[in-house]
Structure formats: C-alpha cells, structure tokens
C-alpha cells in the first residue's frame, strides 16, 4: 500500500524531482510536495486503487499528512467495510 502511494506521488504528482526518495513519514501537506490540486488527484487515485470512498468529512490533515497516515486511515477504512 505504502509503495503504491509513494510511486503514484513520485511519478504523477511531483512538479520537480525530490533529491531523496519520498519517505512514508515525509510531510505531504506542509509545502513543497503536494498542492491542493495534487491532493485531489491523490484522493481520486486512492479511491480507484483501493476501492474505497473517501467522504468529505474524512479529508482532514490527520488522515493525509504523510503516506503512513494515509495507510493507517485506509487500513481502518477497509476493515470497517
């Protein structure tokens, strides 16, 4: 799961290549990695790739700050479904 998200961000969403590889704990929202358009695309990707629906009320910083936050959120979500 981590890997798929990291690959999508690195290949599709980054405007310039990062010096180091993107890590699961890198802050995606603090600036420099994802803009608000990138975030929308990432959510669409996640919905398609993992077959979940991300409702607006789940679109909060605590769920999307880093790749590991996203996977924690998704795992919880998939279990509930």
């Amino acid at each position, binding site marked *: 799961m981590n890997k798929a998200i990291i690959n999508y961000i690195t290949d599709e969403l980054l*405007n*310039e290549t*990062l*010096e180091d590889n993107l890590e699961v704990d890198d*802050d995606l*929202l*603090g*600036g*420099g990695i*994802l*803009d*608000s*358009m990138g*975030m*929308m*695309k990432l959510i*669409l990707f996640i919905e398609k790739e993992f077959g979940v629906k991300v409702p*607006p*009320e*789940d*679109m*909060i*910083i*605590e769920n*999307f*700050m880093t790749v590991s936050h996203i996977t924690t959120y998704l795992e919880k979500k998939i279990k509930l479904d």
Partner: protein
Amino acid sequence: MIKILPHTINFAASAYPEKEAFIYGKESLTYFELNKKTNKLASYLISHGVQKGDRVGVYLFRSIETPIAIYGIMKAGAVFVPIDPELPIARINFILNDCNINYVVTNPNLRKKHPKIIELKNPLKGFIGADLESDFNSITWPALFNTSIEKYSDVSLNEDDLAYIMYTSGSTGFPKGIMHTHKSGLSYARLSVNLFDIDENDRLASHAALHFDISTLGYLAGPLAKATTIIISEAHTKMASSLAALIEQEKITIWYSVPLAIIQLLQSNALNDKNLDSLRLVLFGGEVFANKYLSQIMNLCPNTHFYNIYGPAEVNQCTSYKVNTPPTNETIVPIGTVWEETEYLILDDKGNLNIDGDYGELAIHSSTMMKGYWNNQTLTNKSTYVAIEGEKEKKYFKTGDLVKKNESGDLVFLGRNDRQVKIRGYRIEIDEIEAALLKHKYIIEAAVVVLHKNVNEKEIMAAIILSKEENISLKEIKAHCYDYLPSYAVPESIEFMPDFPRTGSGKIDRIKIMNIYTNA
C-alpha cells in the same frame, strides 16, 4: 503617531503587550514577544551590514516566523521581498539578482532548497532561520532569539521609503516587482481598518500566502487594529474539512481569500455543521466569484456581511461592494465604488480619457498605490496615466481591467483588457463565456482560452470541471451555451479536466491550459 509600518508593532506592544498578535497552529506570538523578536532580527541584520533601503528576502511557507521576518526587516530600515517557496529555483534566483538580495529569512523546512540556492550565481551572503550543514553564513531561529541586543535603535525612516516589493508574473515572462512604500502600505492598512471597523476584538484569518497581496490585510492591517491574525497553515489550505473546523475553533471574525478557497470549503460540505456565529465579515477578491457559490455561502452564513473586493496588487485594494442579498443566476455583482483617498478615471481603448462613455479601462489614483515597478521605469511609465489638473500632474495607475459604471453608480468589472478578443471580427469577452458556462448546474469551474490554430485562425476553447457525480455530454453543454451566448461566442471545442492548473496565488493558469491544448 504611526508613520511607518513597524510603528504599529511598537504601539500594539505598549497598549496590549499580552494580546496575541499572530497564531499559527499551536504556536503564537503576543505583541510583546513580536516586538522583542523583531528587534532582535533587525539588530542582527544591521550588524551584518544591511542598510536602509536594502532588500531582504522572505522565503517562508506560511509560518509563525512570517510576521517576525517582515517587521524585523522593516525595523532594520530594509525592504522585505516575499519569495514564493513553491517557485522553481531559477525563478528564485532571478528575484535574488533582480533585487540584489544579500540576506534571506527562511525556515528549516526548506532545507532541501537552501544548498541549491547557494550554488547559483547571486548576491546572497547569508540565511536567517536555516540550519545549514555547510559553513555558509547562517543563524538558526533559536540562536537569533538568544542573542541579547546591545546597539539596536530604530532606523530613521520616512513614509516615502520602500517597505516591500511584491513580485508578480509579468507578461514578458519575467516577474515584475511592485514597490510599496510605508505610506502606501500603511494607507491600505488604515483604510481597511476604517472601512471594516477592525478592532482589537477581531480575529482575522490569513489564508493567502505572503507573496499574494491579499495577505496584507492580516499582516499589515491586523497589527494596526491591535487584532489577532490567525495564519492558516499550508496543510489547512489543502484539507477543507480541517480548515472548516479551524474557522470554528479559532472563532474567526474576518475572512479574506480568493473565491476558490471558499468554493473548496463548500464542496467539502464541511461548513454545514459548524458554528459560524463569530464570522462577521467575508471578503473575497482576486477573481470573479461565481454567483451560485456566492449565494450558497451567503445562505449558509445569513448574519455575515459579504464584500466583493477589487484592486490589483499595484494599488492594494481600491474598490469594494457590499453584497446585501444572495445573487441569482442573472445578477452581476459589481466591484462597487472606490474607498477614501482614492479617485478613478475611465480610459478609452486608445488610453485617453473617456469623455462620453462610462465604459473602458479603469485607472486609479490613491494613497495606497505603488511607487512603481522595481528597476523598470519603462513599464512604470507604460502603466501610468498622467492627468493634468490645473498646473499639477496627477498620476493614475492603469489597471488593464475593463469596467463600466452601472445605473447606481457602481463599477462593474467586465474583464481584463487582454481578455477581450476579436474572432472573425466579433469582439468577444472571455469572461462572458465563462459566466455563461457556470450557469449550468453541473459545471463547477470553467476556463475559456483562445487557441491559435494557424497564423490567422483562432478558436475559442472551454476547459471545464464537472461536479464529481455528474455526466453530461458535449452536446448538452453546447446547447446550454447557445441559450446564453451569441453564436459566434459559443466555444468551438470543450475539454473536460479533473482540475485546472493554477498559479501560485490560486488563480486559474489559463496560459498553461492554452499550452496543454495547443500542443495536443
């Protein structure tokens, strides 16, 4: 008397030392702390040779250090230059060279960029707020705040000295630097405080990044009113549900942003269950706010006052219009009338005073207007209209925006001068087409561009974003256009996009859209 911008901090610090001046997440600064920390930064800059009038860069994401940077720089007598942290390095380097910047105030979260900037050819001598691994001159924030001030005293400035330079994209492909003085910046702050009755009980949300002129309300008018400014984090600007919660928690009283930020909040539905009673004012500007969203937010906040704000960065704000009732599909929300200390003229298409008509390019003379473009007298002259009044010359800034005066005497924004195109002899307003598209209930956003197919062939193309669940055909959209537009103005091609490319300030990047489909 408050004559220059940093005086506002000194005043607020003596009147309300314990009051929070700025809040960012869990961090905050009282006016006392802000005063002390800005003195330390000013004293550091002076001791490193920064002199009155020198330019100092502010290379920061939204952060609690931003107000320290801008007021510290001004207290040193220097001019602060916001640098958008999302700019490519080459563009940053252009600004450093164009403005001859020796020192840049920054934060460790840009550490990956710092070595790249040092590597390039530019006048940079040091960073403040970086934690570099190299031995390039720099000081960390904790080290700066630990210094004890020995020889700092106010640098003597007068109101015509430069306070800040804001870079904005230029049509030549190079950014142009808009020079504001202490007078123009402080006039803007003072007129805003007067018009919107901002006082020490207000809590302003600062949503825009510093390099975008909308940010000046929070950073400049906030301290003048001794109010509290809540700097919204980068993360909050991207996650609408968190942002909605923040507005409630922080009991925001004044909100000012581009319409897009409000549209994103509406689309997330996150505002619906929030208590927004404290929100007394919503100001929006920078782009036209589509009627359907404006009415939606107005219905959601029935006790809040809404103002359409207009003004290019060159003049700060210059007109405003209070929207009293939620607009319908057919309403045209004016940009209103000029505020105090401001006069306007309407020029014809040859740049002369339009004597018989109320239609043309808006030119503004105001206490809030810029001194000119940095290092570019030619462009400054080109954008200036000189009116002779008696024996005196009066300078007006030519906005490049087309306006007309309506029956009530309010100005109505018609579009950019350069957003009017001629196709097959017909004069077409791009904004009119976009407005027509937006009347369709499934179209969230629309951007119309003109594609140059061959040397003589131009074609109108509309890029649109549909609401997520809806599916409508091209045919239906075209039929909708024919309902609202003359046939020559109906877009020849329509493209669906998941979202639009946007500029650093969140405006739709129409040039990028044009390039995508020109090459396609």
